[in-house]
């Protein structure tokens, strides 16, 4: 039935719906600094908090949204064979985490300040990719978080440059003090709103 090397059409997306099980979330799922809840945190890089709120039309909290984060390690490497430096990637860093929003739409990740890297498309600034899943979102929404520490690198980043200039600031997290002894960054997402306030999302 399936012929090798005959491209198959990808299966269609659907929403997670209103009943994505809370029981899927375990302690540590939103902690990218460790491979599992039992594992020791990585010793490489600066540990940071990335937190904010997910808001829907009218600025109301988007409750029970699921956020999935993916990023490079502190040296800008991925433990994946498409990265030429993957064998040197941090073995104690998974780079993936999942958070869910509470009644205020708030989420939080603990992670490592990512490193930038050279990509054929251009020099990537340190960044975290975020995907949003929620009831009513029929296909995940993808965006990228940049950091205020790296204005020059942000300026050169080929993904941030794809965003209209006046909207780029919406993808740069803001310093948000310190918590748990770590620097915190705030990144709010407005899923639908005024053109100058709605979070820019990318073609997936």
């Amino acid at each position, binding site marked *: 039935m399936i*012929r090798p090397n005959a491209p198959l059409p990808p299966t269609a997306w659907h929403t997670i*719906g209103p009943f994505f099980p809370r029981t899927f979330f375990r302690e540590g799922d939103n902690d990218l600094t460790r491979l599992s809840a039992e594992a020791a945190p990585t010793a490489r890089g600066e540990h940071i908090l990335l937190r904010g709120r997910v808001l*829907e039309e009218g600025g109301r909290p988007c409750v029970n949204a699921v956020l999935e984060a993916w990023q490079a390690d502190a040296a800008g490497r991925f433990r994946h064979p498409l990265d030429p430096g993957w064998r040197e990637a941090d073995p104690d860093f998974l780079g*993936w985490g999942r958070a869910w929003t509470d009644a205020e739409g708030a989420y939080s990740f603990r992670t490592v300040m990512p490193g930038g*890297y050279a990509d054929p498309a251009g020099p990537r600034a340190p960044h975290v990719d975020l995907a949003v899943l929620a009831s009513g979102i029929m296909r995940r*929404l993808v965006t990228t978080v940049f950091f205020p520490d790296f204005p020059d690198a942000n300026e050169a980043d080929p993904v941030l440059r794809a965003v209209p200039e006046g909207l780029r600031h919406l993808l740069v997290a803001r310093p948000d003090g310190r918590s748990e002894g770590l620097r915190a960054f705030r990144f709010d997402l407005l899923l639908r*709103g005024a053109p100058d306030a709605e979070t820019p999302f990318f073609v997936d």
Partner: protein
Amino acid sequence: MTRRDPPDLFAPYDESAQPAVPIEGYANTFRRNPARPPIPRPYTRTARTGPLDLSPKLKPGDDNLAVIAPGRIALGQLIHVSGRVLDEDGRGVPGAVVELWQANAAGRYFNPLDTRDAPLDPNFVGNGRTLTDREGRYAFFTIKPGAYPVPDSGRWWRPPHVHVSILGPSTLSRLVTQMYFSGEPLNAHDRLLNSLPDAAARPRLLARQIPPQEVEGEWLAFSWDIVLRGRHATPPAP
């Protein structure tokens, strides 16, 4: 659209085979979908890569939703669902995490947010997590979910369906979808299934019933293959 190979292992989605929003009677498809069209971006290494082994974190190994504990069996029609997770070339995707959740036989979710007046089954929670094998195969036991009406939607009933989430080898191959059952009359009226503009894409979400005489056990069996976006399920090491 042209495909280059490599490094262009990920072509954009065919929009006609993906859901169109908003959907009538589903207010969240209005409130939560951006007004601005998504911005084209280059697929850099961040998008092309993804977590290769999530099992220490997500801990699969829960593929029998029908039996909550020894002797505690869910009410409903026992079913077995199996198939393969494939890439666009038809290669099996090994080691993908498959998450499942569904309503009970009465169409009620074991979830505090489901406040509908239908019975809960004390022996059915209705979620599980499993891993594909070396050939990309997955399988799980469960009970056939019931249909349920969508509140405030004007008599829209969801046909029996199982929610499925797959975490594959790349963030670009991430998929969340729903599996339906062939031959259900409600399928023709479901606003989610019919939100795919290309009618030819809809049957790909339907599981096929395996003839009972071919099933070695006292359950009904269904087969459903899932295709993740991307070519080369496991990219070769450089």
